[in-house]
């Protein structure tokens, strides 16, 4: 019973945060709303017995990425958008399309989940998702992808530096 | 010559030697080195092809394969293989190709100035492509080589051509490509249909299988048009011919000779090798249409040729006219007419090739092909005039020279044939008069009368290289004119085999038209003069 309550709490927080991010005129406030959503999602991970992922989420997303965003927003000191943009046909089309996709997704979820195999008892799931198992899996099965991720991050940092630097004269 | 015939894998050697030569030429630094490599490769290929000629014996044949054959599976899981060999149909055309090889190289010796290495390597690749087309017995392999020949030709016209060569090159490639893509659809459709019916569900492109497979009437019409369009553009048949004059006018001499001498024959060869034996019912049904196009091509080509100012364009339209004869012969379905058509393909290669060589030599000296700039040059260049007159009369079909034999056989065969009415043959025979008209008109304007332009007084006559070029062609014109019999009976047996099989298959398909799932298979039926070994 507790879990459903927690789930709905965080779900509402996440959605409100996301909408806030969407509506906010000032980029800083939208970034903050985003952070709120991220926290909500982290908590949800915990309710899903994925504590490690929850921590990682908070650590990387909320901590590193959002800080980066805020930093960039400050750097560019973007002014807030004066008024709500006027609605042209493309905006309306996009909105309608979004709602249509949402409806389709929900329909798929409600109708088609019977194809999935049986669920596993929750206790076993919690034990399987512990940090140690993740660590073992990471370094055995997915060792190669781990290295690749390392290379990817290296490339990203170099790229970022090169792009953002002023041109050498 | 017979010793040459015993070389293993001779056919593959003949096909890929030019390509090997191209590779070697690429690595050589000096232009002269490239030129000599190209020449030596071409000459050696010609000698090897003599081995082919000696190795092929028309009196004997295996039921399901050509002579000197090589067959290696190409795509696993599908019945598509590198399947090459020699039968009567392609032998003469291969000899023509290998003969024109060295001549083309020699003719471009001083003509090509820039990027010499590129030119000669492309020529060698083109040679491989064309030899591949003629020697392949697998529909997919044929298609691949058919496409390969396009690329070198595009560059040859595009880079070393005349003023708006790019337009001509693009037009040439796109026009032929459209045709060949349609053919690809045909190849796939036919391959699968035949595969399901007679090859246990496995896609097949083997020529002998496809000849024996009786395509149901419904599909036959469409397939016939798919193949026909590709080859009609290549021939070129009447409405699809407009790329030829542009391509010829802009192409360098060597390019023109190869284009007229050999590339056009791939179209007509395709008609007799693939279109007619595969779809006999449709061929018979549409023969009158083809006859109309051919006859229009003959007369229309001749009239338009007559009105041209540029000598090369005149000869290009004359090719349209001459090949109209060949198509008429092919669709008459009588042995004489098809034999005549096969022989006329070789003749046209020789005489039109020679005409382009001569025009090229004139262009090298005066840098203009416009007939109005000449006049009365017979006095200054007698040797040139001799070769030009011989070639003009050969291509006008004078008896005793090679043009007449082909034309006569085509016309006499078409008259006898029941495929289309006699009126077409009468109209086609007027082509004999028209060809004399425009060719003599060209000679009259270029060679006779007083010398009007001062530059014509100082034109140098042919040097030894150029005479060396023309002597073999001139000798062939007389030899093929007076003694064609040994060459004709090389292709006699296979032509009769194709016609008999097409006839039998047509009847069988008509008979089986009732039941929807009836499978018609009529293996290749050789005439009784040929000893068929399993």
């Amino acid at each position: 019973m507790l879990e459903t309550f927690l789930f709905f709490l965080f779900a509402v927080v996440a959605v409100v945060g996301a909408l806030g991010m969407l509506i906010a005129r000032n980029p800083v406030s939208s970034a903050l709303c985003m952070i709120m959503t991220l926290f909500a999602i982290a908590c949800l991970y915990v309710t899903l017995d994925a504590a490690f992922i929850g921590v990682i989420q908070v650590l990387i997303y909320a901590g590193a990425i959002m800080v980066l965003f805020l930093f960039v927003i400050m750097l560019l000191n973007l002014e807030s958008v004066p008024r709500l943009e006027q609605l042209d046909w493309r905006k309306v089309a996009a909105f309608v399309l979004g709602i249509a996709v949402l409806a389709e997704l929900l329909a798929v979820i409600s109708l088609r989940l019977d194809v999935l195999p049986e669920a596993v008892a929750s206790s076993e799931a919690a034990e399987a998702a512990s940090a140690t198992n993740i660590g073992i899996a990471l370094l055995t099965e997915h060792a190669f992808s781990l290295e690749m991720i390392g290379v990817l991050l290296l490339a990203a940092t170099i790229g970022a530096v090169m792009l953002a630097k002023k041109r050498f004269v | 010559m017979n010793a040459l015939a015993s070389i293993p894998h001779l056919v593959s050697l003949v096909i890929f030697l030019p390509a090997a030569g191209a590779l070697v030429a690429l690595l050589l630094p000096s232009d002269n080195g490239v030129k000599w490599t190209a020449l030596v490769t071409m000459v050696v290929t010609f000698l090897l092809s003599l081995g082919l000629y000696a190795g092929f014996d028309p009196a004997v044949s295996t039921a399901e394969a050509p002579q000197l054959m090589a067959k290696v599976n190409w795509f696993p899981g599908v019945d598509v293989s590198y399947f090459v060999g020699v039968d009567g149909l392609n032998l003469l055309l291969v000899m023509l190709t290998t003969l024109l090889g060295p001549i083309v190289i020699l003719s471009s010796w001083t003509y090509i100035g820039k990027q010499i290495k590129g030119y000669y390597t492309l020529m060698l690749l083109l040679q491989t492509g064309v030899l591949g087309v003629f020697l392949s017995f697998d529909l997919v392999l044929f298609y691949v080589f058919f496409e390969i020949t396009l690329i070198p030709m595009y560059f040859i016209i595009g880079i070393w051509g005349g003023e708006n060569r790019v337009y001509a090159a693009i037009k040439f490639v796109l026009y032929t490509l459209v045709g060949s893509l349609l053919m690809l659809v045909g190849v796939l459709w036919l391959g699968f249909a035949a595969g399901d019916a007679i090859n246990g569900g496995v896609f097949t492109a083997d020529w002998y299988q496809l000849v024996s497979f009786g395509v149901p009437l419904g599909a036959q019409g469409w397939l016939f048009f798919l193949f026909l369009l590709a080859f009609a553009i290549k021939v070129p048949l009447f409405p699809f011919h407009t790329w030829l004059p542009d391509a010829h006018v802009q192409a360098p001499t060597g390019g023109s000779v190869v284009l007229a001498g050999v590339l056009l024959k791939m179209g007509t060869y395709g008609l007799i090798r693939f279109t007619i034996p595969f779809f006999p019912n449709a061929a018979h049904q549409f023969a009158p249409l083809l006859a109309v196009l051919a006859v229009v091509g003959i007369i229309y080509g001749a009239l338009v040729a007559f009105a041209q100012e540029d000598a090369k364009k005149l000869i290009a339209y004359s090719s349209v006219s001459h090949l109209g004869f060949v198509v008429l012969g092919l669709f008459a379905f009588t042995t004489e007419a098809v034999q005549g058509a096969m022989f006329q393909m070789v003749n046209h290669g020789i005489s039109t090739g020679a005409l382009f060589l001569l025009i090229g030599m004139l262009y090298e000296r005066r840098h203009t092909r416009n007939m109005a700039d000449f006049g009365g040059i017979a006095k200054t260049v007698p040797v040139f005039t001799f070769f030009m007159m011989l070639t003009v009369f050969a291509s006008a079909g004078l008896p005793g020279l090679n043009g007449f034999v082909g034309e006569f056989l085509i016309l006499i065969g078409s008259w006898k044939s029941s495929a289309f009415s006699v009126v077409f043959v009468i109209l086609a025979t007027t082509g004999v008069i028209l060809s004399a008209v425009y060719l003599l008109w060209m000679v009259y304007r270029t060679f006779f009368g007083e010398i009007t332009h001062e530059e014509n007084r100082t034109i140098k006559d042919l040097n030894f290289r150029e005479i060396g070029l023309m002597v073999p062609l001139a000798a062939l014109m007389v030899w093929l004119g007076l003694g064609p019999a040994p060459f004709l009976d090389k292709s006699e047996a296979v032509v009769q085999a194709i016609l008999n099989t097409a006839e039998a298959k047509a009847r069988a398909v008509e008979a089986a038209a009732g039941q929807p799932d009836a499978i018609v298979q009529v293996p290749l039926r050789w005439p009784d003069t040929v000893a068929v070994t399993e």
Partner: protein
Amino acid sequence: MHLALNWYLSLSAILFVIGVLGVLLRRNAIVIFLSIELMLNAANLALVAFSQTFGDVNGQILVFFVMSVAAAEAAVGLAIIIALFRNRETVNVSEINLFRG
């Protein structure tokens, strides 16, 4: 029987669509970027939900990788935005049409 899973997936779908709308509707590059991050998170949420229901750790490992990729992407994306801002004085996506064909 997958009651819990359905809920989580529904939430993830809602968040995802909000991200999409963000990308489509907003003109400011930063906000678009945030929406993309949001879409990624929505995906992660679905992944974790599946991993939890079927007791398969790979789901979470995948989430782990997704996060690192997102991080790399954020870095590069922001660098681009900065470079863009420097020579175009604006981050409004609608004024930038370098992609014109």
